[in-house]
């Protein structure tokens, strides 16, 4: 099966498909450098509670589903909250180690890890760095620039002046017309400030990105698919692999949505992103595709 077939099947099976940014990069259109990657987010390994009675079984389901893809993605990115927070540094490392074991079947593919505040805020990223590496970094893949940002290691949900300086220096090296994909855990824009769904200095990051013509941001944190635009920059959040959260601003608090025994895993899933020259196509992959198709 070709990648295009896989994406069409994903769309037919109930996954919402949208066409995202990177428009206007005519130089890449039609080149052979098409590829796709997979975004997984908010696995919260270590969480226990009624919102997910299959807490230890959900991430393995996603791993199996990604491994079942007919054509493997070029890379996989985890956009934070790999583990659920704990005060105990030993337990934090145990959860991270176990997380790595659970996703071990994905080995053989390139995996980029990012922290969420549950992984990194209480120890300012110390355990994450030990087990996964840098909390922010940049890489290129087949003509597309990628930048992973850390807006969680600072407990105050800031990127901080040091990272902003790094970002500015890195962006200065890039062709402002080239496609740029940014990964973050939290939204860079003020989605729901009263729920703390923002980045305190996110406006500065967006201002730096504005000089680049083709920018798409993929993030996690809010445990649901959401699409937003600031200027010409598109922002797409991903589903969780533990529990969904209410739609932005629709509840008193951003607390987990109750598990529905009639539709287990509803709202959970992962996403494929195809970078195809001048555009990016998003395919959502619900863990319970049948239940969501019925709904």
């Amino acid at each position, binding site marked *: 099966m070709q990648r295009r077939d896989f994406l069409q099947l994903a769309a037919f099976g109930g996954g919402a498909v949208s066409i995202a940014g990177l428009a206007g990069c005519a130089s890449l259109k039609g080149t052979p450098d098409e590829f796709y990657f997979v975004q997984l987010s908010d696995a919260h390994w270590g969480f226990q509670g009624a919102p997910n009675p299959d807490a230890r079984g959900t991430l393995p389901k996603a791993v199996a589903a990604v491994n079942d893809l007919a054509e493997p993605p070029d890379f996989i990115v985890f956009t934070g909250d790999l583990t659920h927070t704990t005060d105990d540094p030993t337990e934090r490392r145990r959860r991270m180690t176990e997380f790595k074991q659970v996703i071990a079947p994905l080995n053989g593919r390139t995996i980029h890890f990012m922290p969420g505040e549950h992984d990194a805020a209480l120890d300012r990223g110390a355990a994450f760095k030990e087990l996964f590496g840098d909390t922010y970094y940049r890489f290129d893949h087949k003509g597309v620039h990628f930048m992973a940002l850390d807006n969680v290691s600072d*407990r105050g*949900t800031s990127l901080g002046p040091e990272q902003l300086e790094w970002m500015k220096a890195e962006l200065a090296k890039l062709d402002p017309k080239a496609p740029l994909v940014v990964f973050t855990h939290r939204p860079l824009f003020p989605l729901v400030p*009263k729920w703390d769904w923002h980045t305190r200095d996110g406006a500065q990051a967006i201002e730096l990105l504005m000089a680049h013509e083709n920018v798409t941001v993929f993030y996690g944190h809010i445990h649901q698919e959401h699409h937003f635009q600031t200027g010409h920059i598109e922002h797409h959040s991903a589903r969780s692999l533990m529990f969904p959260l209410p739609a932005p601003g629709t509840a008193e608090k951003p*607390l987990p949505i109750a598990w529905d025994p009639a539709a287990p895993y509803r709202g959970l899933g992962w996403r494929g992103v195809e970078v195809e020259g001048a555009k990016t196509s998003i395919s959502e992959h619900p863990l319970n595709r049948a239940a969501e198709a019925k709904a």
Partner: protein
Amino acid sequence: MRRRTLLALAGVGAGLVLQRVAAQAAPREIEITAQRFHFTPNRIALKAGEPVLLKIRALDFAHGFYIPDIDRRMDLIPGRVVEFAFTPANPGTLHFLCDNFCGDGHEGMDGVFEVSA
């Protein structure tokens, strides 16, 4: 008029001024404690136009205190009282929350000012 009388009147006048300044500068004080994962109290009645002085004390963590509706925030230091004076302008609800991630339960650490007319 004798000088002593003038001084006395001046003293009375100054006293009135000082009293008025004191009245304006003495907002209602409201004590709030921040402790994982709640504020106490977390529903606070205010009146529009009434100046208040929040005296916020964190007991166990460097929590944040953020009022997004007026775009003001402060970091709390355990054991110290952080003061914040403000006057709600209009009736309605102002949310506040901890915006420094403080652990498992942080997402529910919030409260509201219920501002009446």
